[in-house]
């Protein structure tokens, strides 16, 4: 796995950076952390586990993204980081 990013810092989006790690580590900065931080982290780890990724370090900067956006950005970053194109399958 190499370092890769997806997403932007626009309002309603989330910037995801994925790199090598041991276990799944998620560091989240969010404009809605108090109310939704727990849910956002859960969506990130669920998405990675769904892609079969068990070891990664994720830096996420969230600007109020919805779950669908978070899943899309995490998937795109994971594909770039692993080189494994999940959309072809």
């Amino acid at each position: 796995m190499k370092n890769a990013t997806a997403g932007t810092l626009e309002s309603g989006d989330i910037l995801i950076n994925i790199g090598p790690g041991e276990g799944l580590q998620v560091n989240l900065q969010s404009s809605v952390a108090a109310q939704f931080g727990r849910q956002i982290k859960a969506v990130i780890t669920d998405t990675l586990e769904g892609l079969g990724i068990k070891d990664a370090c994720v830096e996420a900067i969230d600007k109020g993204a919805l779950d669908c956006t978070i899943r899309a950005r995490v998937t795109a970053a994971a594909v770039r980081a692993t080189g494994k194109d999940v959309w072809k399958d």
Partner: protein
Amino acid sequence: MRNSKVVSLEEAIRRSGLQNGQTISFHHHFRGGDKVVNMVVDKLAQMGFKDLKLAASSLSDVHAPLVEHIKNGVITGISTSGLRGALADAISHGLMEEPVVFRSHGGRGSAIANGELKIDVAFLGACSSDELGNATGHGANSICGSLGYALPDARYASHVVVLTDDLVAYPNMPQSISAADVESVVVVDSVGDSTKIAAGAIRDSKNPRDILLAKQAAKVIINSGYFQDGFSIQTGTGGASLAAVKYIREEMINRGIKASFALGGITAHMVKLHQEGLIGTLIDVQSFDKVAAESIAVDPAHREVSAVEYASGQHLGSATHALDIVILSALEVDTDFNVNVLVGSDGIIRGAIGGHQDTAADSALSIIVCPLLRGRIPCVVPHVTTLITPGPSVDVVVTEYGIAVNPGRPEIAQRLKEAGLKVVPITELAAKASSIIGKPDPLPFGDKVVGVVMNRDGSVLDKIYNIQ
């Protein structure tokens, strides 16, 4: 001139007889460009004053330096319509021992007029003044137009100091603030940053969601039963509100309908309709942009009113009592139609009551326009974080997912349905929002009261607790 009232700021303060523990007041017509509040409080701090109560018509980002004056005990109480920026953030986290008192613009006017809010010394910035204190919102260095929020202070404060950066020859007439109410005039280098006092006309929103909301709001108005010749209207300055004016204008022309007056904060949009003959009188408590500020100086049918004449709930002659339709925004609306425009969904104060309570309560038809979600933040919720405008005074809520009508106004729901608009129960909107974003965790509020929200009749509506 004989009997000139012009003195230095320090001398004006000495002459006022101001004592520790007393109340000083300010207006917010210079908006984000204001230099008067910081300048005066800095001077009061230098002169050794403590324990002062600051009664502002509103406060914004530019007043962040007050944080230090609060820490140093110079300011120990605040009343205002709104708070934003670093000052709001610090207060939300528990900076002050005494809770901030939040009043609507009409509520503040009433409280000053009936003595509940007693002002010892008013420090009123003006764009021009003569040596006796005839002062206006028009000057060589800046213009703000109406001084409506300063007029109750000028009339009822025990002592009035006018601050200006444009001293003109007597008589400075027609005047907003009368020399009869003024004790001292202070000439300063600058009362504010003119580019931030009156910006050019607010640009039309190109945001497609704003345009959709505006079209829906216009359809609600047109089919509400109140869209008749001689109707009256007030709008906010939000993108959707202003865009709605555009669609209402088209329909006024199509049907040959004219409005008797437009009320409140006046924008270039309203001035345009007035100049086209579509609106009779502009009743202006606050000129929101340069076009409005210039118009009020020259157009006899563009009138300045005080906050009391605008929106007092205790004066039956106030203009809101004659208002048919108001379009308002919201941070949150709940399933009982209660509205919050003051406290963000993170628990931090980030807004102002403004005329929200007043116009919603007195108008024949109050319409709240807000998106269902702002990013991940829901705008239609089971319970508002803070109660600002009580549900019974809110008639219609317009979102991009449908229009909810207060069950107390079945005749309006009927008219909108007959016009083919998508009328839905407000609980359905809250459920839709929740289905997209999930269930938010509760905010980490503490047990210290940092703000008290007053109703316009002087009763307490809600309390704001510190956020941890």
